[in-house]
C-alpha cells in the first residue's frame, strides 16, 4: 500500500518456509481486502511467521499479531515481505 519496496530484498510471503518469519512490507490487494487483512494484523512493519498449511499446501496458516490466520496461496503471493535482518 505504501512503502517503496526494495526489489532486491523483498519477496512474496508465499515463499516463506514453515517456521521462518519475515516483516510485511505491503499488500498488493484491492483496498477492501487489504483493510480486512490489516484489521487481522497484517500491517506493514509487523512480523509474520509461516506456520502449518492445510494438507496439500493450500491454504497456508500464518502467525501474525498473536493469532493464526489462514490465507490461500494466491493471496499470500500478493503480500510482499522482507527478511527480518533487513529491518
Amino acid at each position, binding site marked *: 500500500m505504501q512503502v517503496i519496496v526494495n526489489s532486491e530484498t523483498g519477496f512474496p510471503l508465499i515463499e516463506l518456509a514453515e517456521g521462518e518469519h519475515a516483516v510485511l512490507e505491503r499488500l498488493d490487494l*484491492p483496498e*477492501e*481486502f487489504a*483493510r*480486512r*487483512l*490489516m*484489521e*487481522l*494484523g497484517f*500491517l*506493514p*512493519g509487523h512480523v509474520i511467521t509461516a*506456520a*502449518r*498449511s*492445510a*494438507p*496439500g499446501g*493450500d*491454504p497456508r*496458516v500464518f502467525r501474525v*499479531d*498473536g*493469532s*493464526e*490466520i*489462514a*490465507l*490461500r496461496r*494466491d*493471496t499470500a503471493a*500478493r503480500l510482499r515481505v522482507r527478511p527480518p535482518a533487513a529491518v
Partner: protein
Amino acid sequence: MSGAPRTVAIVGPPNSGKTTLFNRLTGLRQKVANFPGVTVEQHLGTAQLSPDREVDLIDLPGVYSLRARSEDEQVTRNVLAGTMAGVPRPDAVLLVLDSTNLGRHLVLAAPILSLGLPTLVILNLADDLRARGGDVDTAALARQLGAPVALISAAKGEGVETVIQFLLSRVSAPAPLELPVLQDVPRCRQWATRVGRHAGYQPPAPPLWTRRLDRVFLHPVWGPLIFAVVVVAVFQTIFSGARPLMEGVETLITASGGWLGARMPAGVWKSLVIDGVWNGVGSVLVFLPQILLLFLFIGILEDSGYLARAALIADRTMARVGLQGKSFIPLLSAYACAVPAILATRTIENRRDRIATILIAPFMTCSARLPVYTLIIAAFLPERPVAGPFLGSRAAALLGLYVLGFLAAFGTARVLKSSVLKSGPSAFVLEMPSYRWPTWRGLGLRLLDRAKVFLRRAGTVILGVAVVVWALAHLPLHDGRAPRIEHSLVGVMGRAVEPLIRPLGFNWKIGVGLVSSLAAREVIVGTLGTIYGIEGEAESAGLQAALRHDLTPAGAVALLVFFAFAMQCTSTIAVVRRETGGWKWPAVQFGYMGALAWVGAFTANQVLSRVF
C-alpha cells in the same frame, strides 16, 4: 448521561466470548429474531441484576471495526447509533475483548469509545491469560481508556459480578486520554499497542496445546484421515444414531393421535385433527431429533475450534468448484435437512459464496427424501446382492441417488461461481482459534434455540399447509360429505397438471402427490396412501402394488430423478427468503430446480421406456 442503564449492547470481535457472557447474564431469558431487512440474527435477553432490577441485553455480531462494510458491521453500527428500527438505542455498552490477544482486540475500543456511550471494557478469557503467564494492569488500562475495565472469565464465571455492578451503577460517558484517527488502520493499531504498554500488558505465551493438536489435525496424512472419520461419524450418527429417537417421537405422535382419535366423535372434525393436523405436522416433527443431533455435532465442532480446521482442509477441494472451505459444513448438514444447513451458511462472510452455498444445499439428499426413495425403490427393485454381502441392489440404488444429488449440487456451483456469482479469487480468510473445551451450558442453550426455531415453523407454515392439503382433499362437499378423491379439489389440481407431467410418465394421481409434496417431500407418501384408498403407511405393501400398477419402471426412475432435483419444501423456500432477504433467490432456485427436475425426469422416462 447518567442513571443506571436499561438497554445494554454487547459488542466485540468474533470469538471473544460475547455469547458466553450473554448466556451467563441472561440464562434462559433470551430470544432470537432477525434484524428487520437483513440476515443478521439478533439475540435479545433480560438479565436479572438484583431482585428488583433488570436490564435488557442485545448480543451483537462479532466485528473488528465499525466501518459498516459487512452486514454485521452495519447492524452493529446502526444499533449503537440508535437508528435500527425496532431496537431501542442502548444506553451503555459492554465491550468484550480477548485478553490473550489484547494488542489486536484493543483496536475496536477506539471506535466504540468515540461513540460516547458509557462503556465497560471487559477483558475476557482471564483464565487462559493467567494459565499462559500473561498479565495486565486493569486500573492502568482504565486510566488510559477513561472507562472502567473488568478482567473476567465468562466461561468460568469469574469476575462476572463486576459486570453486574457496572450495570447497576450510575454510568457515565468515557473520557479516553487519546484516540487515534479511526480511518487509519495502522495508526489505530499503534495506538492499541501504546495503550497496552501503558497498562503493563504482558501477552501470554503461545498456546502450546493448540500447536500440538494442530500438528496432528493438520498433519498431511493424519489430518485428512481424522477429517474423514469425523465426517463419517457425523453422517452415521444423524442416520443410525437418530433412528431410535425418531422412532420414539413417531410412536409418541401415533399413540397420542390414536388416543385423541378414540375420544373424538367420528366426522369431519376428527378427520381434520387426525388426518390433517396430527399426521401432517407429525410427519415433520419426526425430524426434530435428527436436526438437534446435527446441531449438537456442529456445536461441538465449532466451540472446540475444530470446525476452522475442517474448513481449512476442505478448502482446496471446494475451490475446484469455485466455493470455499466454509461452505463445507453447511453442505454436510444438508444431508440431514436443508433448513439448518442454510442457517449454517451464516459463517460464510463472502456474500456470493454464501448465496451459492444456499442455492446448492437443497440438492444434497435430505432425510425427507428418504421415505419417498425407500417406497419407490422397494416397489420396483427386487433385493439382490450387488457387491457380495455388503451392498444390496436397493442400497446401491439409494447410494446412486445420493451421488446424483451431489453431482447436481457441484455442477450447479461450478456454473454459478463461474458466471453470476463469480467472486474475487481469494476472498478466503480464516482465523484459526485456539482449541477449547465446549461447555454444556453453551451447547444446551444452542440446542434449545434451534428446537424453538424448528417448532415455531412446524406450528405455523407446516401446520397451515397440512390443513390446506386436508381441506382440498375433502372439498367440495357433496350432500355434506367429502367427495371421492378424484373429484376433490386436489383431484382437480392433479388433472390440471397432468398434461405437464404426462411426458415424464406420471398420471394424475402421481400429479396430486407432486402438488401436495410442494409443501414437503415426504407428504407424497401420505397423499398417495389416501388416493389409493389405503389406510396408513403400515400397509405399504399395498401401496407398492398400487404404484407398480400405475407407473412403468421408466416412470419410477423418472419419479426418483424428479425428487432428487426438485425443490419441494416450503420450509426451505421460507428460510432462503429470510436468509437472502427477498423473494428473488428463492424464486430463481425454485424455477431452476424445477426445470432441472422436469428435464431430468423427462430424459429418464423417454430414454428408459425405449430400453425397457
